[in-house]
């Protein structure tokens, strides 16, 4: 990588994070904030080092739930979007219902999921799916319906079947939009897992947050939040990375 690319891809983001942490620390010191309300970065690191193995294990539980739920949401979202894009009738019927399901506050749904599905991974994974599937559907549909007319004409003139047009032209053209949806859905997936875990705590970082509030351990809650933020950032950049590999032509089209 050239020097300027190292600077913009690695150094600048790191610098941004360091500046943010420094400002946080400064605020805690200057305003004499009691750690009970806002712990300083030093408090957070210290608390993490008290039980690092436990926190890493809990992080892993949350990550697994997020990944499984996200995979299901993407698969289901793509499938539903393809069906909706293929049939106007189905789209007209299904869209209001999907929008309504998406509008239901998931925080209210979480206790119900506990009663329906009990403890364990299942209700959390369902929550992840419910929270993150809608952006995938909307963006995929937007992508599928935005194929330029001249490309479809080209496919027709080359005697492509409906299926070939759909997969090789419409779906491929939709990929950049699909990834927009995936990038929006990634943090939502994490939020979904945490809502599930906070409402019915068993394992995972959401349970750590719930447990820390019972013992008024704000620093521990902050550790969990920092870990969740880190997971969010990593997953986001992973999705962006997959996009760069799968859709390399999109960047050259727009830049």
């Amino acid at each position: 990588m050239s020097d300027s690319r190292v600077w913009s891809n690695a150094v600048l983001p790191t610098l941004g994070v360091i500046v943010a942490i420094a400002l946080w620390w400064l605020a805690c010191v200057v305003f004499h904030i009691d750690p009970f309300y806002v712990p300083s970065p030093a408090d957070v690191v210290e608390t993490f080092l008290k039980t690092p193995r436990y926190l890493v294990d809990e992080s892993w539980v949350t990550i697994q739930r997020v990944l499984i739920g996200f995979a299901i949401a993407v698969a289901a979202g793509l499938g539903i979007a393809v069906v909706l894009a293929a049939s106007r009738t189905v789209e007209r019927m299904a869209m209001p219902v999907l929008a309504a399901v998406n509008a239901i506050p998931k925080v209210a749904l979480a206790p119900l999921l506990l009663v329906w599905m009990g403890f364990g991974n299942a209700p959390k994974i369902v929550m992840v799916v419910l929270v993150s599937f809608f952006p995938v559907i909307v963006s995929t549909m937007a992508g599928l319906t935005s194929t330029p007319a001249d490309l479809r004409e080209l496919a027709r003139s080359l005697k492509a079947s409906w299926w070939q047009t759909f997969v090789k032209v419409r779906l491929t053209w939709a990929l950049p939009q699909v990834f927009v949806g995936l990038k929006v859905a990634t943090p939502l997936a994490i939020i979904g897992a945490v809502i599930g875990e906070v409402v019915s705590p068993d394992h995972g970082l959401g349970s750590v947050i719930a447990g820390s509030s019972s013992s008024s351990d704000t620093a521990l809650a902050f550790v969990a939040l920092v870990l969740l933020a880190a997971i969010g950032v990593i997953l986001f950049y992973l999705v962006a990375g997959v996009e760069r590999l799968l859709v390399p032509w999109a960047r050259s089209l727009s830049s």
Partner: protein
Amino acid sequence: MFRRSRVLAATLLAAVLVTASACSSSDDSKSSGTTGSSGGSGALKKVTYVTAFGAVGRDSFAWVAKEKGYFKDAGLDVTIQKGAGNAQILGLIKAKQADFAALDFTGAEIQSGKGTFTNWRAIAAVHQQTLVSIMTTADTGITKPTDLSGKTVGTATGSVSELLFPAYAKLAGLDPKSVKVQGAQTTALNSLMAQRKVDGLSTFLLSKKALETASKKQVVVMPYSEYLADLFGNAIIARDDVIASDKDEVQKFTDAIMKGLQYTIDHPDEAAQIMNKDEPTAAIPAAVGEINAMKPYVSPPNGAPLGHMDQERVARSIAVLQGNGLIPAGLTPDKVVDFSFIKASN
């Protein structure tokens, strides 16, 4: 195209690996309510128990009973799940996602009286008195209930401490209408008091130490039990169909968990350590504080065995709730307690 298919293959492989590891991970308790099937002689019967309020000192006796092997000796493999208050717990019991639970008995009586959640019976008491109290910091100058007139009291929305406040106020000579009751999330209460956004709290006296730590001031406690002496605090309940299908199992469970409770109040530090081992978010000093705070309330009067629930007291507690309009007429003690599990007092 060649490159893309490699990426796709790699992504698929990663997905398969993650799913495989998730399916084989041992953290998932996978326990739902049992339906009475046991796994043959020698196998432990799986049951689910939900704590009253997560992993805190007042619930530590369940972990103690498990760690010390009392459950195992009783032939039970108990999965302890962290509960979050009466509404959630009674919902889990109704949905058969849990077999046993600890919860606030008075709050549960109210739900049973209203007819919302009736498929449970108490099998032992944990606290012989209600632990709901008014708590305030010394700097408010409030030392008796009547001082609350014209002030604001913070309480957990929908909790038994909110429901009982009018009854307590009337008995303490305070006009409940002269007090503003501010509902909030349970976990926010101590901060609200520490920041003097309210003048007092109506909450469980077990969090006295936590409030002292948060506010860095002395805390004044005015227990509701001074005026509402017939109300119980936490109790252990069992689902009615679990009792019906295997009374013996319920008796063994009761004996084992009471043994755990006795050990806990005799060894608070060890109990807190045991709970912390399983649940690292449960801070040990706070847990020890809670166990010590609840000690005076655990032993029944007149030397009755641990967990005893006096039938007449239960009847009186129902009368108190009915007299204060919290439940309609019709609730009887046998609808909330299964006295066949309560050992007679000496």
